């Protein structure tokens, strides 16, 4: 792990595909002020969000255990986590789903094939500043 940055921002990444986790981790390592913490299931994500109180959550929708939208709802219902901004990052190209996510309190809805890893990191950074 890189050294602790004075303005270190914690980003919780809820994603079940190890290949993708590795891909984004590789991209994020160039930004020492951004600490990407991956979890591989929804359940783990909910737990970690409450414990770690991250500055931002990146949420995949199709997870092995719980549907991402349900994770989002629970995050927004829990007073401990409801103020943490959540960005949905997925390959579900469905307007109805993206709208539903925004409605449920997601900050944004990003498509993995549309945004290259660098763009994603830049956008995260911009949003946190």
């Amino acid at each position, binding site marked *: 792990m890189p050294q602790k940055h004075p303005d270190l921002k914690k980003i919780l990444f809820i994603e079940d595909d190890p*290949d*993708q986790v590795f891909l984004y981790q*590789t991209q994020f390592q160039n930004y020492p002020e951004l600490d990407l913490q991956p979890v591989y299931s929804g359940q783990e994500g909910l737990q970690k969000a409450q414990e770690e109180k991250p500055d931002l959550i990146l949420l995949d929708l199709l997870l*092995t255990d719980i549907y991402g939208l349900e994770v989002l709802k629970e995050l927004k219902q829990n007073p401990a986590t409801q103020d943490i901004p959540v960005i949905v990052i997925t*390959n*579900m190209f469905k307007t109805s789903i993206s709208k539903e996510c925004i409605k449920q309190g997601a900050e944004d809805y990003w498509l993995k*094939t549309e945004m290259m890893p660098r763009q994603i990191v830049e956008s995260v950074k911009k949003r946190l500043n």
Partner: protein
Amino acid sequence: MNLFALSGILAGFSSTVMAAFMFVRGRNRLHFLWGVFCISVAIWGFGGYQIATTADPEVADTWWRITHIGIILIPVLFTHFVYEFLQIKKLFLIVALYVIGLLFLVANFTDDLFIANMRWVFDQFYYDSPPGIIYIPFSVFFFGMVIYSHYKLWLAYKTVQGIKKMQIKYFLIGMAVSFAGGGLSFLPVYKIDIYPFLNILVFLYPIIIGYAMFKYRLMDIRVAARGIFIYAGLAVFAYAVFYLIAWIYQEFLGDVFSPQGLLAGLIIAPLFVLVLFGVNRGLRGLADRHLFSSLSNYQNTLRQLTRELNYHVDLDDLVNLIVSTTQRTLGTPRAGVLLANIDNDHIKFDIAQVTGFDEQNGISLVRDNFLTQHLRNTQKPLVRDELHLLIRDSRTRQEKEGFENLLNQMIKIEAFLCLPLINGGRLIGIIVLGEKTSSDAYTKEELELLDTMAQQAATAIENAQLYSQIQELNQDLEQKVEKQTKELQEKNRDLEKLLKIRSEFLDIAAHQLRTPVSVILGNISILQEEDLQDLSEEQKKKLFRGIYKKSRKLEAVIRNILTAFEVDSEEFSLEEDMLEPIDLVRLVEKELEEVRKTFDLQKVAVHFYRPSELFPPVASNRYYLEQVILCLLDNALNFTPEGKVEIFLERKEEFIKLTIKDSGIGIPESDHDRLFHKFSRGEKAVNTYPHGSGLGLFIVKKVVEAHPGGQITIESTSQNGSTFSVTLPIYKQPDPPPDRIQPEE
């Protein structure tokens, strides 16, 4: 008054009534001829009365000459009538008769050629005896023509059948009796002084013939009893009232023109009119009950009925109309309609409507088919009275018994007339009528009218039957349309559901395709954009491996989708030439190697229990079987977030059973059926198990069942894991065994 006078006045009176009737009701030459004949007899009768009641030879002479006008015309008119009646056409003979008759008439008015002397006979009256010279040939002519005519009638009687025979019989009897009686009165002319007491028989002929007219429709003329009755009744009433009032005036009121007389008239006149109407109505009612109703009356009604028949399409209405109108018009309390019911080529007659008859009895008429056969053959109304004649004339014993049976049946149920309803040569029904209230016979006109009506009715009934059939058909059609609409709606719902599933599938498939693409793209962009020095060798390697892995995954997803479409056709089956021997143990091991890493990553243990014995190869196709095993493993992994997956092989006779058992979340039984459908996933699966394409099990089922005897089963309940078993046939050497097949595994 002596007997000669009495017989004369009786004969004269009865003949006059008959003649009057003929002129009033008669319509054709036959009726006219008969009327004239009766007048000539009447002249003889009344003339005889005058002769019998005078003691003056001058007066007697005059009346003898007048009487002879009638006597001369009798043989002429009688012969003419018989010719007309028997429809013998000999114009020359008829003309000759009249010429001869004319000659005798002329002779009748000569001084002494015909009537010459008056002789006081029996101490009662003068007789034209002895006669003039021409009287002798006249006598011969008279008896000659009378006997000749009777002979002609006798001949006809011997040859004709049916009602005509009866008509001739009665006519012959009536005339023979009368001529025999009257003929004797010729004797005293020739000084054979036998009292002409048998002249009394002459008045019988109008009675006998009248009876035949009534009973056997002789000359087809109707007895206008009803009209005569009403007319005479009213006349008697008016006559009686007139004299009653006249008497009252005479006794109590004095002069008709006195004030009280005029005043009384004001009361009497309206009273009379009032009572007259009542009497008229009463007489009509009486006549309707006991006498014929007028022919024209029901001619009109039946015509109207015939017209009305065309407006009815409802069978019940129609039958009702026929029954009620015939009943009302003819005055028959009993009437019924039987209709043919064709049932498996067997024609059965059922009662459509009946009044007055007992239903059971109505059926008895047609029980033995004799009546229907008869009606079908003759296509004419059958009158009960004619059955006597048919019985007598029947040629075979069987026929005779049939008619006798029928007669008994008709008598038993008091049926008088059976009218066939014929349409297109087929007997479609029978109208059965009872006796008229008046007990009168059915006249020929009535029968013709009824026959015409029956023809119309038959057409109308057939139409109504067709109409009702069409209606039934319509109703049937409506029901069918309704059913099909329902089916369509259901299909539509199914389709909507299918579309929903399809769009769900597309979402998932798109996701399945995009996910590896996004990783490949992402990894490549890092490798491109990053300063490669910043990446460790390990990272680079991992990124490349990611690209490779996801490319393989992408390839698998594409293959999955393509295979799904390939096997999703009616024709898909593994033909014998597509089957090859495959060592299932080796294949499972090979596929397991492919996926083991994925299992490891998900921390799901996977174990293959190799069979201890050596299994023969299965008959399958490598390309498809690989996918089956991969799909089943993939499926097991998808349903098992954690735990283990076990694989077994066992031999079951000619099959090998591959079982893949997981300890995952299981599949509720309600989902089992649709599990193998295209684009279908378990209820929870859409949201919960994101990595299946929804096609895997569909492919497995299609491929497995394409094998001869191939089967797939699932045992699973919610929360208790799932066990999928696939049964595949053991490979057999084809007959004859071709040497090219070598197991390669």
